[in-house]
C-alpha cells in the first residue's frame, strides 16, 4: 500500500511491521513523532508491543537492553542529546551482543541549542559496536528497520538506522508500506540461542578478566566483518521480495566517471540531481553514497574510487582537530592500497541544518574540479568569515 507519510512515521511503520515486542523511549525533537505514533499503535492494538515510558534516554536503552536480553525483539528511538545521554548503554547493548534496532534522527549537538540536522551525534557513537545505516529517503528508512532486525539477529550486533532531522523526519513522501504477512516471510520471529531465562539461569556481562576480554572484542570485530556479507545478502533478498535492493554503498553513474563525489544521507540524494545536471553538460562525474558506515565498506570504496582522477567527499559532520569523518575514513581506506590513489578533497557543509542545496553541491564540485589538489585537508563550504 502506497501512503504519503513522514520519515518519522516510516520508522514507526518499520517497527510495527517488524513486530517489535518492546518499545522503551523518551521523546526528543525531531524523534518525538516516531514514538508518538508507536504509542498510538500499541494503544489501539495494531501492535502488541509493550510500550514503556521511561524517564531518560539512558533508561530507554537500559530497558531495551533488558528486554532484548530476555529474548524480545526490542526497539527504541532517539536523537542528538538523547543519544549522547544513552552512550554508556550503547556500549552495553553492543557488548552484550543484543540485536536491538534503534532509529536515530540526526540532529546537531548543542550548544548553541539546535534542533536541525547534522551527523555529529551518531558519529560520536561510531566506536560503540553498533552498525550504522544512513538513509536517503523515507522508503529506505522503513525498509532499513526491517532489514536491521534481519541482519542484527544473525550477527548479534545492534543496528542504528539514521535519518536526517526534518529533511527526512518531518518530510512526507510516498512510501510503499509492505503487507505484514510478506514481512513475516522475510523476517521470522526472533529466537536467540542464549537469553535470560529462569529455567536456564546464567549470569550476563559479569566480571571479565584480561584472559578473555580481548577474545570477546575479537569476536565483535569478526561479527562486524561478517555483517558486511549479511547486509549485502539480505539487501539482495529484500530486493527480490519487495523490489527494492540495498547494499553497503550505492553507485550512481560511477562507471565511466573520472570524478567521484562521496556523500551520505539526504546530501547524497540531492547530489544525484547535480550529477545528472553535470552529466548533461558532458562532465564525467559520478556519485558514491555510503549507506552503511559501520561496518565500514572499505573494499567497496576502494573498488569504486580507486584509480579515479579525483574524489570529493562532503561531510555534514566534523571531528574537531581533524577533518570530516567520512573523508578521514575514505582516505584511510587507501593507505595500504597499492593502485593509483586519487587526490581527495574533503568539504564540510550543512552543519546544524544549514541547507545543502543542489547549488551548494555544484559549487563544491566545480571548486574541486578546477584545482589540482586541495589547499588544505579541510575545506569549509559556505562558512561566513
Amino acid at each position, binding site marked *: 500500500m502506497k501512503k*504519503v507519510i513522514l520519515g518519522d512515521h516510516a520508522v514507526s511503520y518499520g517497527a510495527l511491521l517488524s513486530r517489535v515486542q518492546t518499545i522503551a523511549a523518551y521523546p526528543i525533537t525531531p524523534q518525538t513523532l516516531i514514538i508518538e505514533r508507536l504509542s498510538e499503535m500499541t494503544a489501539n492494538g495494531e501492535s502488541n508491543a509493550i510500550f514503556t515510558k521511561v524517564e531518560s534516554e539512558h533508561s530507554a536503552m537500559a530497558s531495551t537492553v533488558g528486554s532484548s536480553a530476555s529474548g524480545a525483539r526490542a526497539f527504541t528511538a532517539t536523537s542528538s542529546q538523547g543519544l549522547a545521554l544513552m552512550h554508556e548503554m550503547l556500549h552495553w547493548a553492543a557488548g552484550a551482543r543484543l540485536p536491538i534496532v534503534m532509529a536515530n534522527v540526526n540532529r546537531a549537538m548543542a550548544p548553541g541549542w539546535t*534542533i536541525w540536522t547534522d551527523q555529529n551525534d551518531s558519529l560520536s557513537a561510531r566506536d560503540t559496536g553498533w552498525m550504522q545505516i544512513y538513509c536517503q529517503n523515507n522508503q529506505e528508512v522503513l525498509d532499513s528497520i526491517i532489514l536491521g532486525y534481519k541482519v542484527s539477529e544473525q550477527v548479534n550486533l545492534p543496528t542504528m538506522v539514521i535519518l536526517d532531522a526534518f529533511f527526512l523526519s*518531518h*518530510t*512526507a*513522501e510516498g512510501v510503499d508500506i509492505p503487507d505484514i504477512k510478506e514481512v513475516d516471510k522475510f523476517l521470522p520471529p526472533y529466537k536467540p540461542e542464549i537469553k535470560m531465562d529462569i529455567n536456564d539461569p546464567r549470569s550476563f556481562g559479569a566480571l571479565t578478566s584480561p584472559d578473555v576480554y580481548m577474545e570477546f572484542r575479537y569476536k565483535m570485530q569478526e561479527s562486524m566483518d561478517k555483517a558486511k556479507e549479511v547486509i549485502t545478502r539480505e539487501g539482495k533478498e529484500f530486493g527480490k521480495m519487495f523490489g527494492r535492493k540495498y547494499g553497503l554503498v550505492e553507485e550512481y553513474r560511477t562507471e565511466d566517471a573520472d570524478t567521484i563525489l562521496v556523500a551520505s544521507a539526504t546530501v547524497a540524494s*540531492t547530489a*544525484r*540531481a547535480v550529477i545528472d545536471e553535470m552529466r548533461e553538460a558532458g562532465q564525467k562525474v559520478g556519485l558514491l553514497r555510503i549507506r552503511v558506515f559501520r561496518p565500514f565498506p572499505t573494499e567497496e570504496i576502494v573498488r569504486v574510487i580507486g584509480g579515479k582522477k579525483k574524489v570529493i567527499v562532503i561531510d555534514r559532520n566534523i571531528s574537531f582537530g581533524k577533518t570530516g569523518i567520512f573523508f578521514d575514513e575514505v582516505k584511510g581506506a587507501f593507505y595500504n592500497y597499492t593502485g593509483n590513489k586519487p587526490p581527495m578533497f574533503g568539504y564540510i557543509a550543512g552543519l546544524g541544518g544549514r541547507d545543502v542545496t543542489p547549488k551548494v553541491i555544484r559549487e563544491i564540485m566545480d571548486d574541486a574540479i578546477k584545482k589540482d589538489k586541495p589547499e588544505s585537508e579541510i575545506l569549509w563550504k559556505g562558512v561566513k568569515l
Partner: protein
Amino acid sequence: MIEILIHGRGGQGAVKASLALASAASKAGKYVQSFPEFGVERRGAPVKAFTRISDEPIVVRSKIYDPDHVIVLDPTLLHTIDITKGLKDGGWIIINTEKSPDSFTEFKKRFKVATVNATKIAVDNRLGSKVAPIVNTAILGAIIRVLDVATKKELAEGIKEFVPIKAEANVKAANEAYDLVKFSEEA
C-alpha cells in the same frame, strides 16, 4: 517537477494543506514531497510549507527557494513579506482574498494570479472561528483547479487523510473553492 511554496501564518494549516495536496497528487500517480519550514512554529507568525510534485522520483531534498508557484493563505502577508521572492516568471500566485486577480497589477507583470475568497468559504462551512477561520482546505480546491495536479476526488481523499476532523465540511469547502476560484490563463 513543480515546486510549490505555501505562505501562511502559524495555526492556519499551511503544513496540513501541503500534506493533503501531496497526498492528492500521489493518488493521481505523481511522486511527491511535502515538508514544513523547519523551525519552531508560533501561532500567528509567518510560516512556509513546501510541496514538490513530479512525474519522476524526487531526489532533491533541500528547501524550495525558487518556486514555480506560490500560495498565499493570508492576504495580510502580502504587506509583510515579499511573496514573489524567487518565484519563476510565469508562475501562479494563488491568493486567499475577496479581490479579483485583476487588482494585482504589479504581480501580473511577471506572474499569473488566481484568487479565491477562502476565508468566506471557511466561515460558511464553520471551519475554525470567524476571527480565525481555517482556510487551508478551501484553498486546496483552488490549487488543484488552477495547477491541475489532482482531481476533486483525489483531493477529497487527501483531505480525509490529513484533516480527519470535520472531513466532510473540509471537502465541501475545497469543492466550493474549486468552483469559485477566479483566474484566466492569459491573465
